[in-house]
């Protein structure tokens, strides 16, 4: 296995060649689906027109103000969900321990629903509501699975149960809500990027950016933690503090996406595992998870827009359809595992 080693002054880093190639390939594919997303609409725009619009040309309003925020949201949210999935799969040491399966998306959505039904539903209220909802769901899953530890199937099974309860609670809130609110909430309950514009995404982009920076800082410790608590501690990881920070970052990413786009399921579940297999890297690596997540979500959003065009489906319908099959396969594999 070949690797690139870069050293200069106090900086030194070793990167597997496969990771470099994979990153380049994924970035190219992302650029491709991104461009496709900017071109696609009621009328197709040529790539030349897209580039003209991006560089501020006249007549590019539709592309700049309608399509670009949607594409940017799909890419950044996809990356955020991929990272959140990788974080929880690393902490739980289980490919099914991802936030969408163990109820964090549903919890964040509950928080958002409360923010729009009880409060007025401004974007700040939505963000705060989602984060609180996600955090409460995470705490509930953690407390209920105490004794079984953070890892293993026990936490996942409890998470699935919590997820089911929260989904029922969400339906109940929507049913009790005013008609207008209910219609808005339902269109969003599957996870949707329809009608996302710049004003919706500015704050979430900032939050996700900060959380991703925090994640980069803690990424080496995250991977060191994969050696198990004993060796992680004796090689210098403060595991209690690390795991708390990771849960905060993971819940923050999940909740921020959910506040804008609703609970988009299965990206967080599938992207880290697909990325891991492509990268052939140890544990659940973060960068491949982020890139795969961005590619998957933008790809799914294109399918969602094209499938029944001109009607645009919620992207969550597409991710759920694809991800559901993946989950069934994963469950059969997990149950067989000793």
């Amino acid at each position, binding site marked *: *296995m070949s690797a690139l*080693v870069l*050293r200069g002054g*106090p*900086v*030194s*880093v*070793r990167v597997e060649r496969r990771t470099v190639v994979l990153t380049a390939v994924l970035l190219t594919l992302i650029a491709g689906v991104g461009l496709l997303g900017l071109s696609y609409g009621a009328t197709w725009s040529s790539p030349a027109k897209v580039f003209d619009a991006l560089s501020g040309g006249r007549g590019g309003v539709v592309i700049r103000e309608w399509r670009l925020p949607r594409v940017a949201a799909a890419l950044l949210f996809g990356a955020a969900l991929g990272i959140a999935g990788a974080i929880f799969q690393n902490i739980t040491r289980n490919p099914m321990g991802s936030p969408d399966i163990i109820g964090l998306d549903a919890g964040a959505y509950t928080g958002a629903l409360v923010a729009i039904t009880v409060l007025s539903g401004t974007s700040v209220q939505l963000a705060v509501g989602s984060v609180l909802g996600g955090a409460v769901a995470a705490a509930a899953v953690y407390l209920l699975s105490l004794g079984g530890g953070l890892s293993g199937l026990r936490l996942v099974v409890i998470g699935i149960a919590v997820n089911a309860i929260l989904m029922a609670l969400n339906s109940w809130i929507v049913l009790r809500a005013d008609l207008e609110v209910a219609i808005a909430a339902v269109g969003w309950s599957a996870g949707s990027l329809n009608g996302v514009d710049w004003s919706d995404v500015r704050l979430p982009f900032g939050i996700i950016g900060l959380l991703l920076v925090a994640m980069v*800082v803690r990424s*080496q410790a995250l*991977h*060191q933690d*994969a*050696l*198990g*608590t*004993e*060796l992680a*501690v*004796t*090689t*210098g*990881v*403060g595991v209690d503090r690390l795991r708390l920070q990771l849960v905060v970052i993971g819940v923050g990413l999940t909740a921020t996406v959910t506040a804008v786009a609703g609970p988009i399921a299965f990206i967080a579940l599938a992207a880290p595992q697909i990325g*891991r297999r492509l990268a*052939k*890297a*140890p*544990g659940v690596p973060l960068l491949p998870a982020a890139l795969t997540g961005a590619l998957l979500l933008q790809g799914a959003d294109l399918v969602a827009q094209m499938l029944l065009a001109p009607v645009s489906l919620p992207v969550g319908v597409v991710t759920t359809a694809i991800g559901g099959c993946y989950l069934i396969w994963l469950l059969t594999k997990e149950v067989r595992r000793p």
Partner: protein
Amino acid sequence: MTARLTARELTLRYGDRVVSARLTLDVPDGAFTAIVGPNACGKSTLLRAFVRLLKPADGQVTLDDRDVTAYPTKALARSLGFLPQDPVAPEDIRVRQLVARGRFPHQSLLSTWSAADEDAVTAAMEAAGVEDLADRPVHQLSGGQRQRTWIAVVLAQDTPYLLLDEPTSFLDITHQYQLLELLGGLRDQGRTVIAVLHDINQACRYADHLVAMKEGRIVAEGAAADIVDAVLLKEVFELPCVVVPDPVTGTPMVVPLPGASS
């Protein structure tokens, strides 16, 4: 012999179960210390307290007169290296990648693969005899190869103190002795080795300082030749035996008597 690593009046417990009460031990510096005793006598627990995996209910572990809990985590990890009994490797990791994880306490956000890291990893793999396995996935290795890989991880950590919990388990007899020779060599280079060992004869042969434990207490400690006799074995292991000099090294060798298991 001087001691920089010590346990002072240590009380260790899991929940309500007290494992050790008011245990005191000075680890001789630059020596090979072996801890022996029957199963569940608190050997591993003591080792875990030394490396801060178990917080003492009372008393303290000190390194250079400073409580180990007062050290920053990474700083302590540059002094004390530990190999647990049953470590887990991340999925799909290769030997070289796993050994490189031992360098974590020497790395920072910007420096994750310095020349010193590379040299330490290469040297550790050579010392543990796994350099030929460098690109093999750890999960495909035999039990013995895997154990030697873990030894290399701790060697790469490059600490003056090495604490190992039953490092010879999973190894065949040849590799057991190779490992003990390796640990002896590390001691000769000035490192302090503390190992929990199952085989009393190996402990007598390789350790400079033997610590015999039973039910959480230290029954005897000192050079094997000074403390190991049939009386001690009867007391610690409840094993009727004779002790004769090892024909090769002259260190005490335990030969159990017939019907000893009844």
